[in-house]
């Protein structure tokens, strides 16, 4: 079919590529209660982050083999689980505190954008791409995770089900991590919850996994890149969070938002969330064409990415609230 004269555009897949940095460096990932705690909390946060950011930059430079690595910084604000204040009030405060610590935020993102960007239901699309890691003995008959709303890193304890009449009930068995080394660290992640009307609320770890995929340049909708930055038109920020684009470029000279690898500097209360993110990333099949584009370009630049998407993600957890 390669030399075909006749073509139908709807019959051929195509995937657009995105510009890429070497590293996407996340300076924070804060919830409304952090902002509620006042400017002092932000100041402490950036003061703690500063040295680790320098270390992450140094590590990226070492990996780039002497050339100047392209590094972009980003910051994620939660406007999904709770709404507080307004961009007009909060964003200038945030930027001022970052600046005080000598840090520059290139890109600002809203967490709602990880659920729905524009009209694209990103979270739902990513959820449909989950391919559960099969425990040994899976020969093709396991139900997909999408049926339950939970994703584990192994095999759950069997459900206690009423046995057939006159048959013995099965004895309890422990859950088991599939990649366990002798002993299990079993984790079962709630991907979403639903209210009585069937309205779905995505869980924080699941949206954080979508956020990682966005930063790795791996999100596509029908081949089109998602989570592309809008420039900040200048002037004041809007009074309503919904009027702020999902991703805003604050620094006109910034390197591209998406990158081969990511690093996030977070307080250590995020440790369980990010463990869950890894469980999700490790079982999410991303767009194969996007994956190939990035593999080819990173290899061409002499900084090949790890095969596994979860291995492209790194963290610094600092002791803090």
């Amino acid at each position: 079919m390669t030399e075909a004269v006749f073509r139908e555009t709807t019959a051929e897949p195509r995937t657009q590529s995105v510009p890429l940095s070497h590293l996407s460096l996340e300076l924070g990932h804060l919830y409304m209660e952090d902002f509620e705690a006042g400017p002092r909390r932000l100041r402490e946060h950036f003061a703690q982050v500063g040295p680790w950011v320098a270390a992450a930059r140094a590590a990226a430079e070492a990996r780039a083999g002497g050339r100047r690595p392209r590094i972009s910084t980003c910051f994620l604000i939660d406007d999904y689980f709770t709404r507080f204040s307004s961009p007009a009030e909060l964003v200038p405060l945030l930027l001022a505190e970052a600046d005080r610590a000598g840090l520059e935020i290139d890109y600002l993102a809203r967490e709602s954008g990880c659920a729905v960007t524009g009209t694209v239901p990103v979270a739902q699309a990513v959820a449909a791409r989950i391919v559960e890691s099969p425990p040994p003995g899976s020969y093709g008959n396991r139900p997909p995770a999408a049926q339950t709303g939970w994703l584990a890193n192994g095999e759950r304890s069997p459900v206690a089900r009423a046995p057939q009449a006159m048959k013995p009930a099965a004895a309890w068995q422990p859950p088991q991590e599939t990649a366990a080394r002798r002993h299990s660290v079993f984790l079962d992640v709630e991907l979403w919850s639903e209210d009585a009307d069937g309205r779905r609320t995505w869980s924080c770890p699941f949206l954080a996994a979508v956020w990682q995929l966005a930063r790795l340049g791996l999100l596509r909708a029908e081949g089109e890149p998602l989570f592309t930055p809008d420039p900040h038109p200048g002037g004041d920020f809007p009074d309503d969070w919904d009027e702020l684009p999902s991703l805003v470029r604050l620094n006109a000279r910034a390197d591209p938002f998406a990158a081969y690898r990511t690093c996030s500097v977070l307080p250590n209360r995020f440790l369980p969330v990010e463990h869950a993110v890894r469980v999700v990333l490790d079982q999410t099949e991303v767009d194969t064409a996007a994956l190939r584009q990035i593999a080819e370009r990173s290899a061409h630049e002499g900084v090949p990415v790890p095969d596994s998407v979860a291995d492209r993600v790194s963290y610094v957890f600092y002791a803090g609230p």
Partner: protein
Amino acid sequence: MAGPGVEESAPSAVLACGEIRTCLLPTRQALDIRAAAQLLGLRADERVLLSERPNLYARSPDTLTGVDCPLPSANGARVRAVGTVAARAALTEGRVLQTSAYFRLPATGPDQRRPWGHYLVRPGVLEPFGKLPHEAVAQGVLDGGRPGDLDVGLIADGLLTRLLRHPLLDHCPPLRSRPTRLRWAALPAHPGDGPTLERFTLAEDELRTVRLRVPEGTDSAEIAGLCDDLALHDWLLTTVVRMLDGIALGSGAPPARTRPGAEDRPAVLTTLRPAVDHLLHLWMPRARVAAALAPLWEALEERPGFTRQWRTLVQRIRDQLALHAVPALYREVEPAP
């Protein structure tokens, strides 16, 4: 054809296998192309491939299923393999639904399981533990494995079950028909040889097996595409043959018992009309087969002659219907024994 994933980093395959389920879409009317896209939209972020030439055809994106189990083998070797099986669904002319699951295997793999992310970036690849006895596994797949062995048919069937739950379907099929299963295995061709179709077997009632040889580097999605095409046309033949098989033609000796409630309408008309409405226009071998694999059809056209049989069946149906258009008075005059 949808390109496979990071082919470069995977060692080349020595075996590709799959299974296809083919059935009539259980709806009164064929689905139009937009409804087909709705039915097959398995993922919110990936488009359904739609094509209108040379016939209406829609194909879903691939979905993956993780497996970690022994491979079936004809010599009893129990080789464990881990990876993902790809599956997709296709709808031809809004009428025939197919789900197709397939995978490929490299000659060797590591001795232990790797992190799952390693397998996920190699969609449709299973890695064996150690060396793969590919001839024995190919035969094992075609024969069907023991309980607990990889069953790629289950994955095709699981996708079919999911699609058949779609609210678009009214479950009023215009005719009774049986789904078929086609299992295939593609082994490497001898160096320098082109692709060949070694054997096409009608096994049990609903099972067909196809054994192929293909040059190294042949895309497994393209082999699956060829086998989808074979399965579609085999299903058409099977279905129409059974339709004609089940009816008493002419006015000779009646069957052992008369079918209840059939006295008022000629059985021939009620049985054959749906074939004309829904099946006869679907015959189009090689419509979407990759150019390199299209010549494999020739073996089947030579013997037993798929298209030859189809033409005969179509002619028979048309003759019967034409005969019934003649007033009964003349039709019933049959040569005396």
